[in-house]
């Protein structure tokens, strides 16, 4: 099961197109787009299928996107399983199947000056119970020559809480913390990255909570948005999990 999300602030707006079909062409009958939000330390669910387009997509306009709410698709009968104190798997419509592809929405970010960028996005359920650390190279998809570079760090955590956690910029050569940001769970966190940190030795390291690190850069209204791949995707060894753990430990020792 996947969740879908957007971002909204004074610089960027976003909209979502959530498909009602799998990549293999299977259409999901009688599906409803639901919105989840946190209220009084509980997950609140509401129906949000007001603008289905051509029976292919649920369309979520920028006026309906904010940094807190998340979306998923399901059927009415799935709600019997819904729990307000914890996210659980309500259906398998959007789950990954063998030899299949991730079920993704199109998240399109626009800047007031006119540019746009999109990526096929999803937040898999299996990430929501995870507490841990995300490590990613800061230089990978940022633009040194951009007017501005930003990190958009999306976390969805299973419990209906908005807890603060830190995201560090770490210099791997000097083994030093360069700066940090205060992020929160169940939120589309957004921070500007100063140019001085866009160097090969700089890594972004989150503490206690994982998430999807998405980088946005902007110059003269043209924008670039892309997420980075997790470190395990760089290794095919059978012991790749241990190799990445060791690498993460090296960076976590700097922030602890």
């Amino acid at each position, binding site marked *: 099961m996947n969740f879908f999300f957007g971002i909204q602030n004074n610089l960027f707006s976003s909209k979502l*197109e959530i498909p009602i079909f799998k990549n293999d062409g299977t259409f999901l009958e009688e599906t409803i787009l639901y919105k989840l939000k946190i209220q009084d330390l509980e997950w609140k669910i509401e129906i949000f299928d007001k603008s289905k387009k051509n029976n292919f997509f649920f369309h979520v306009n920028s006026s309906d996107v904010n940094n807190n709410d998340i979306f998923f698709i399901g059927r009415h009968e799935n709600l019997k399983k819904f729990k307000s104190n914890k996210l659980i798997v309500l259906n398998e419509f959007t789950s990954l199947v063998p030899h299949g592809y991730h079920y993704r929405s199109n998240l399109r970010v626009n800047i007031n000056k006119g540019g746009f960028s*999109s990526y*096929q996005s999803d937040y898999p359920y299996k990430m929501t119970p995870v507490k841990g650390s995300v490590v990613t190279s800061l230089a990978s998809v940022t633009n040194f020559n951009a007017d501005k570079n930003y990190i958009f760090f999306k976390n969805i955590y299973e419990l209906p809480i908005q807890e603060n956690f830190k995201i560090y910029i770490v210099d791997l050569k000097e083994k030093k913390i360069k700066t940090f940001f205060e992020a929160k769970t169940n939120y589309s966190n957004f921070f500007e990255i100063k140019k001085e940190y866009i160097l090969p030795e700089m890594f972004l390291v989150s503490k206690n909570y994982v998430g999807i690190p998405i980088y946005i850069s902007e110059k*003269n209204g*043209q924008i670039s948005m892309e997420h980075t791949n997790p*470190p395990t995707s*760089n290794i*095919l060894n059978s012991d790749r999990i241990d190799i990445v753990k060791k690498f993460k430990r090296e960076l976590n020792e700097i922030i602890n």
Partner: protein
Amino acid sequence: MKSLIRKIINLDFSIQVRNTLNIIPKGIQKKVSNQSSTSDAFIWRTDNNFTTKFKFSDILKLYFKIKKSHVELHFYSKFNNLITIKKIYDLDFSNEVVISKNLLGGIEDYGVFYAYHIMDEKKSQNISVNNKCYTGFSKDKEFYSFVHGNTLVRTFDYYTNNQNELVQTSFIKNKNYLIQKFFYSSEKNELFFTNPASKSVKFDINGKNFKLKKGHSKLISINDNFVKIRSNCFYFRPIAFTYNEKYFDVYHC
């Protein structure tokens, strides 16, 4: 006996039969060498004033603490002709290469390249890495729109120095892929396809037929809001370029 059966069902031909009949299909050849470097088929573009930038990590240094290595970029034309091999030494944790027409001998076109991490000294330990790093595309040579690598396409075996494709095919077009994206008619959209397999790929886009030989790539303009691709190849997904007035966007589909 069991090992003989296993050998037979994993022959190239047998895999194609399995994939055609959808009996225990196999999308990717998982038996990558214990000492190898695998790469996506990354796009380069120098056509229509594009410049490409490739950003990559020194994977061997970051995860295996190997200090003496280099990266080889093997550039191919859209018809799979080797253009040049660039070797990059003195690697930092993160590195970048600008791919302009000057780098490719003045060629203004498009194609693919493969990025291999090569150890300068032989090691006995198992080291199998995969480059799924990032390509950026620019019209002004200053600001790049980035997209990440996605698929394991070609692997370089450190023992044999051979390169092999990993993605598997079937005899018929029985793989459907409906792109989960609405393409607006008000925008210009191009889809970039590369053949990730060692066999020819036959495919159609909303019924219009195409064919890509081994290593070939093709940029196709589309005018449809919805795109259905039918092919004989696993993991056959395009990268999209969308243009709206003076802005453009690049993303995986």
